[in-house]
């Protein structure tokens, strides 16, 4: 590991809140409005950090410490995400398993913080979160397995290094399925339409935002920033599947990669602009569908 490996992490740390800005801009374009500034999430976080706090009377220390654990776990997860052809600072065989479980840690404490309030709203959000997350896990794991089988590598960085169009060759259909499935996972895990809609602010229909309904000030700042990093992680994982090895310099390759990550935010924006949310009861079907896509990809390998 050299100092160069830290650069991609820094880029992720710096650019992740931008993804929300891009999504909102795309949605604004579709609606025919200016939309909120690209840097709005930065402004929000910066403001929140400077604000005071109101702790709910029913809450305990868990509520105060939860967001710190959430942030910690996504920060560490970020360390394992490769940056195009550049390996992640932390890379080992099976690292994707740890990555998934670190995101699990963040979810675990988001849910506990929510339950700490004792409010029915937060409970509702928490119940939804654990349900959909559990159904989403197999999609991620099978997807990583698919990649491992293709590339013969067991670490994310290794997989990404090996995945270029020449190597994948005839299997591009399976990779396409994987991209589609992980895109569905991204939308679910990051509370986007068609699964969740953070913009309605309706307590009864949301999943993620309703869990932090009672979280304010710096705590909310942490949560907001952590959700940006989480979105970055998922976008980067998908971007890694899409960006070919251009055999160019690190800067060019890196720039193309960042562009791809931002492009995924654009795609999220487009999806949010053209479709409505599915019914809460139907979300499991979406997730099982995503797993089925990956499974199809795996069967294609077996057949191939």
């Amino acid at each position, binding site marked *: 590991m050299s100092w160069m490996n830290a650069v991609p992490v820094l880029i992720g740390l710096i650019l992740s809140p931008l993804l929300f800005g891009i999504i909102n801009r795309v949605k604004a374009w579709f609606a025919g409005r200016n939309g909120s500034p690209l840097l709005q999430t930065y402004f929000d976080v910066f403001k929140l950090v400077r*604000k005071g706090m109101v702790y709910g009377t029913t809450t305990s220390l868990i509520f105060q410490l939860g967001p710190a654990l959430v942030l910690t776990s996504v920060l560490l997860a970020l360390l394992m995400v490769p940056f195009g052809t550049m390996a992640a600072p932390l890379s080992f065989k099976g690292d994707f398993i740890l990555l998934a479980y670190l995101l699990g840690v963040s979810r675990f404490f988001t849910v506990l913080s929510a339950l700490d309030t004792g409010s029915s709203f937060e409970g509702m959000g928490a119940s939804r979160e654990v349900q959909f997350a559990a159904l989403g896990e197999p999609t991620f794991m099978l997807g990583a397995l698919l990649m491992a089988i293709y590339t013969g590598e067991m670490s994310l960085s290794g997989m990404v290094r090996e995945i270029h169009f020449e190597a994948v060759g005839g299997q591009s259909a399976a990779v396409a399925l994987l991209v589609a499935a992980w895109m569905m996972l991204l939308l679910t895990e990051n509370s986007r339409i068609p699964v969740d809609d953070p913009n309605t602010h309706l307590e009864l229909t949301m999943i993620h935002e309703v869990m932090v*309904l009672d979280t304010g000030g710096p705590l*909310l700042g942490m949560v907001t920033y952590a959700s940006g990093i989480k979105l970055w992680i998922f976008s980067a994982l998908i971007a890694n599947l899409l960006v070919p090895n251009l055999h160019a310099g690190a800067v060019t390759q890196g720039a193309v990669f960042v562009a791809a990550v931002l492009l995924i935010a654009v795609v999220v924006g487009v999806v949010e602009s053209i479709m409505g949310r599915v019914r809460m009861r139907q979300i499991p079907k979406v997730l099982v569908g995503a797993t089925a896509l990956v499974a199809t990809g795996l069967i294609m390998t077996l057949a191939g």
Partner: protein
Amino acid sequence: MHRSLLARFRQGHRTHRFPREAPTLPPLYRGMPRIQSEKCASGCTRCQEVCPTDAITFQSGKPTLDMGHCLFCGLCETACPADALTFSRDYRLAVNRRQGLIVGDGEADRAALVETANRVFRRSLRLRQVSAAGCNACEADTNVLGTLSFDLGRFGIQFVASPRHADGILVTGPVSENMKLALQKTLDAVPAPKVVIAVGACAIGGGPFRGHDEVHNGVQDIPVDLYIPGCPPNPWTILDGLLRMLGIETPATQK
């Protein structure tokens, strides 16, 4: 997808160029009242008599109008035989001192009456709206700020569900006895620093319901940072108030 795109192209881009351009107001719009007491016939109190909310009072023979109570119905303007009381087309009515709502002779520089709120909110202001027994018109005209033409979000202002996420509350309605506790609880739930904005005649002074046993004549006992008068205030008036509070300059009405 193609249908959405097609619809998008037919609908076009709809955000108004405000604040770079002045808003378009209806021809009959009634904005900032203007009093020229020198035109008043001695002893004439026609305007005071017709005013439904007693917004107009006479002090030493000169009328003053309290915009905090004014419904902008225009009855006084119609009633005045001498054109001493008229409504201009100036939509910039918001002030941050209750006293600033009282219009006497001449024209004060109203725009100067709004001081910039805490700088923390300059680029990010999230508000929790509390509807406290109004008629839903102020709510409607506040809601409309989220639509394409006004596009409140571009100024970093957003309405949120939870007061914990908010930087202040925007109150409409005369604050009924039944809403008093909820209003206080909402305000208490907002982390400091916070702003309080009173929108509409009801929230400022009770509006048409002033003096009813069932209401508290608007936001009392809570320091208000911004008053936006009207019944209901035009959306542009509300937007102007919010922006000036954040230190963003707004244009005067087109002549």
